[in-house]
């Protein structure tokens, strides 16, 4: 408990202080750090980071939703094995996996050599150190986090409901929008949270795959803390990230409550 609450207060406190070269922090309280966050330069980084995280989340959802559906309908015997295969990456070093992606995307990496030897492209395509590379890396690392909660809701989805909907004359699309989607929404929201939040903070992915231009909020925070030693500013940035998290968690809770009430009536 001590390890959680106190440091959080410290960071919030630090975010209001001014920078001091010798002491890291000094007293005159100020809103300057927050004002600097609104500086176009940083604002751009934040928006760009948010954009990459959002694209990652949408991609994970697009890939993960049908995947979880298909997975939940596979034979029970196979499901154990398939689930196991899904958890393996979760237990493997994420840095190593990021590096593996880099190995594939490099300009003299496997994808480019394959394309060239097949005669599809003449010169190597630049894939590394782009926005796309960061997004690919994030999707690759975070996809299981989207699939697991989705799989849980699809497993609970009863087949009888789909049959009933069909018997009542609903077409496939109508069944999907009126039955499947509302019932799996909690899984969707949980998955989005589990992907979106880490996607903004995983600075090493942006570092390894994105080069200097494609920064995440995590990179900004890390640079301010460890390289620039501007603690108050870094703290302000992380307070912003925490607030974003709090808002999302609150939305999650509210939506669950609403869905729960609907279920009872």
């Amino acid at each position: 408990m001590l390890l959680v609450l106190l440091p959080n207060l410290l960071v919030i406190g630090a975010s209001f202080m001014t920078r001091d070269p010798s002491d890291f922090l000094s007293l005159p309280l100020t809103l300057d750090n927050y004002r600097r966050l609104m500086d176009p330069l940083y604002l751009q980084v934040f928006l760009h980071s948010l954009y990459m995280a959002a694209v990652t989340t949408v991609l994970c959802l697009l890939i993960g939703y049908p995947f979880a559906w298909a997975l939940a309908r596979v034979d029970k015997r196979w499901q154990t094995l398939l689930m196991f295969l899904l958890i393996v990456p979760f237990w493997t070093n994420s840095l190593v996996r990021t590096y593996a992606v880099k190995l594939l995307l490099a300009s003299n990496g496997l994808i480019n050599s394959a394309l060239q030897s097949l005669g599809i492209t003449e010169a190597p395509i630049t894939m590394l150190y782009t926005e796309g590379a960061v997004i690919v890396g994030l999707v690759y690392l975070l996809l299981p986090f989207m699939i697991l909660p989705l799989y849980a809701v699809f497993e609970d989805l009863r087949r009888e409901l789909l049959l009933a909907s069909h018997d009542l004359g609903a077409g496939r699309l109508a069944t999907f929008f009126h039955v499947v989607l509302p019932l799996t929404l909690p899984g969707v929201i949980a998955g989005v949270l589990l992907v979106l939040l880490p996607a903004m903070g995983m600075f090493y992915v942006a570092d390894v795959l994105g080069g200097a231009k494609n920064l995440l909020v995590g990179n900004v925070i890390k640079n301010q803390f460890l390289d620039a030693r501007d603690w108050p500013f870094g703290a302000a940035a992380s307070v912003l990230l925490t607030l974003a998290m709090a808002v999302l968690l609150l939305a999650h809770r509210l939506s669950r409550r609403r869905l729960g009430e609907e279920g009872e009536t």
Partner: protein
Amino acid sequence: MKTWLPRTYLFLVYALLYLPIAVLVVYSFNDSRTAYRWGGWSLRWYEALFSNHAMVQAMWNSLWLALAAATVSTLIGALTALALQRYRFRGKKALRGMLFVVMMSPEIVLAISLLALFLLIGLQLGFISLLLAHVTFCLPFVVITVAARLNGLDQRLLEAARDLGAGEFTTMRTILVPVMMPALLAGWLLGFTLSLDDVVVSTFVSGPSYEILPLRIYSMVRVGLKPEVNALGSLLLVFSLIMLVISQLILMRSKR
């Protein structure tokens, strides 16, 4: 209903998930100075890895840290789960919420919070700070694993034990510990793996005196491709695969 379409899709996604890992493992046996040209099979990068003293030192450091972090967080986590499960006390809800917050909050926020705390209390960054930090983020996972196991426990067993005259300690030794054992082992393995895997938190709270493996890898892969990392990554992969299989076997056996 057609079944080939979902199956093909599942297969495709799995193929994509495993392609980079497969390439990594194959290339770790590559006998070529550059990371991407194939030059035949060899073990040279594994040899290079183990003849690198700083690297071996970092491996040992990481191993010790993971052992310690997993053990400490399993002990504290088990007690926390027991407390949450069996007793009513003030701040119970707060404790639950706090664990949830640790699990959900972005690692980086946890990292700077801990760094701020360590500097405030004047703790030298090194093994101790790393250990405390790792215990912090492993703890919720252990608590959840153990609590899930305790939830399945038939309360009548405990009542029966009390009726038969068993004290708190005897109940603990003869019922609770055996019941929790599979979850404790699984939680320990998960903590061990999480600790070995962590980059974000370690980046912030480690000091120059104690270099650990993920940070060493990080500094190696930031620029360019290094063949040694292929070998190291493959080793880590096999290692975590073994851990995962063990933990799954434990959980499966305990369900029977």
